[in-house]
């Protein structure tokens, strides 16, 4: 039982009133004690009144309602969550022993194959000649020989007067390979009777790996369905296509 004496008209009594007033809503005895104190204490009276006004102000704020489609959107979210849960995450099926072992084996094979390829390419001899270089396309699998590379260096009439094979270099797309960025094409020029220049044949020496090499006429050098080099018998020379990854042209 709380008596009026519990809230004396002292600073401590006022502090107690201000601390307990918040709990007075559901305690009638406490409420009466506070009211009795406040009748004689203007400071507490003001405090309690301000608190009541503030609470009224806060409670009287507009209550927002749920939108009409609240339930529908909630259902949609739940359905979406269920759908996500149906798809088994990869870490769950990989945790199954058999599948996990298979996956690990596949990863190992892939890693070993990668190491083998790196070893293979890095151990190839570097070919360096004064005006000649090689193209390693290992790291640039889609290199395209630009047409201008050849046309710009097709010799003039005086150059083809002699029947001797000529060698010239044709720049190709830059490669990140440490070897070189130029291709060497061996060209044999045959003068036609009327004296016009005609390129009848261009031999390209293609080197596979470190030791195996092959000299091919240009039309035979193909990668898939795409010719590496095409050269017309007209004055205009072309070279199109892509180099096979790992293939070197000297």
């Amino acid at each position, binding site marked *: 039982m709380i008596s009026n004496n519990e809230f004396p008209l002292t600073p401590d009594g006022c502090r107690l009133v201000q*601390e307990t007033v*918040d*709990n007075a809503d559901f305690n009638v005895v406490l409420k009466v004690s506070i009211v009795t104190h406040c009748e004689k204490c203007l400071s507490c009276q003001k405090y309690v009144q*301000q*608190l009541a*006004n*503030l*609470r009224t*102000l*806060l*409670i009287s*704020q*507009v*209550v*927002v*309602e*749920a*939108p009409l489609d*609240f*339930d529908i*959107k*909630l259902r949609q*979210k*739940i359905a979406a*969550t269920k759908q996500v849960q149906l798809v088994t995450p990869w870490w769950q099926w990989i945790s199954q022993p058999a599948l996990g072992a298979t996956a690990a084996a596949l990863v190992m094979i892939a890693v070993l194959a990668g190491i083998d390829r790196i070893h293979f390419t890095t151990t190839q001899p570097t070919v360096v000649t004064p005006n000649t270089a090689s193209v390693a396309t290992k790291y640039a699998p889609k290199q395209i020989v630009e047409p201008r590379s050849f046309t710009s260096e097709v010799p003039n009439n005086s150059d083809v007067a002699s029947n001797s094979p000529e060698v010239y270099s044709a720049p190709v797309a830059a490669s990140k390979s440490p070897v070189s960025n130029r291709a060497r094409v061996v060209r044999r020029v045959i003068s036609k009777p009327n004296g016009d220049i005609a390129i009848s044949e261009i031999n390209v020496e293609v080197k596979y790996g470190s030791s195996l090499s092959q000299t091919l006429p240009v039309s035979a050098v193909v990668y898939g369905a795409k010719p590496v080099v095409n050269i017309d018998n007209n004055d205009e020379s072309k070279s199109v296509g892509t180099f096979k990854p790992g293939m070197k042209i000297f």
Partner: protein
Amino acid sequence: MSSLSYSAELDLANAISSVSDHELVNAVAQGDEAAFQEIVHRYRSQIINFIYRMLNDYDRAVDLSQETFLRIYTSANRYQATYSFSTYIYRIAANLAISELRQRKRRRWISFFSPFRSQDDDLDQEMEFPAEAPLPDEIMIDNERRKAVDSAIQSLPEKYRLTLVLRDVEGLSYEQIVEVTGLSEGTVKSRINRARNILKDKLQKYI
């Protein structure tokens, strides 16, 4: 026939509405959709209002309320009846609201340093279309007061805002607030008292 089915539906609705929250959550854990629907109907408005008071953003409040119910639905089987269900749901909503407030604070921090701040962003926040017809005085005063209260609540630090909204807007008891926030009762009381003093200063004109 239709009246019978209507009567049966009414009986079912009455039966469900008399079930306690704990029983409803247990039913949800067993996959009872009607029980979940009942929980949503019981707490939908309270949770939207609570989050709205915390964020002052209606659309986001609706989104986060749905997220709250989604979490109730997905984790119903993990619910333990240690606390009352209302405390449990408020706790989830409070965590989501606080998380949102912190994200907003971070975003504001980042946008403050953004070298290409769009002027449109500022315009979007400040732009208010003028009313076509003049408002009656009372409505205008109400609106002004409402905005002032909203603004004052929003100006409170996050820790004070949470306890004040739970106590003075949602009407939770101190014990419930202790359960929702995980703070001690002394801390809760202190924070509420501090928040009220700040609001009294800011809303002196209205109280």
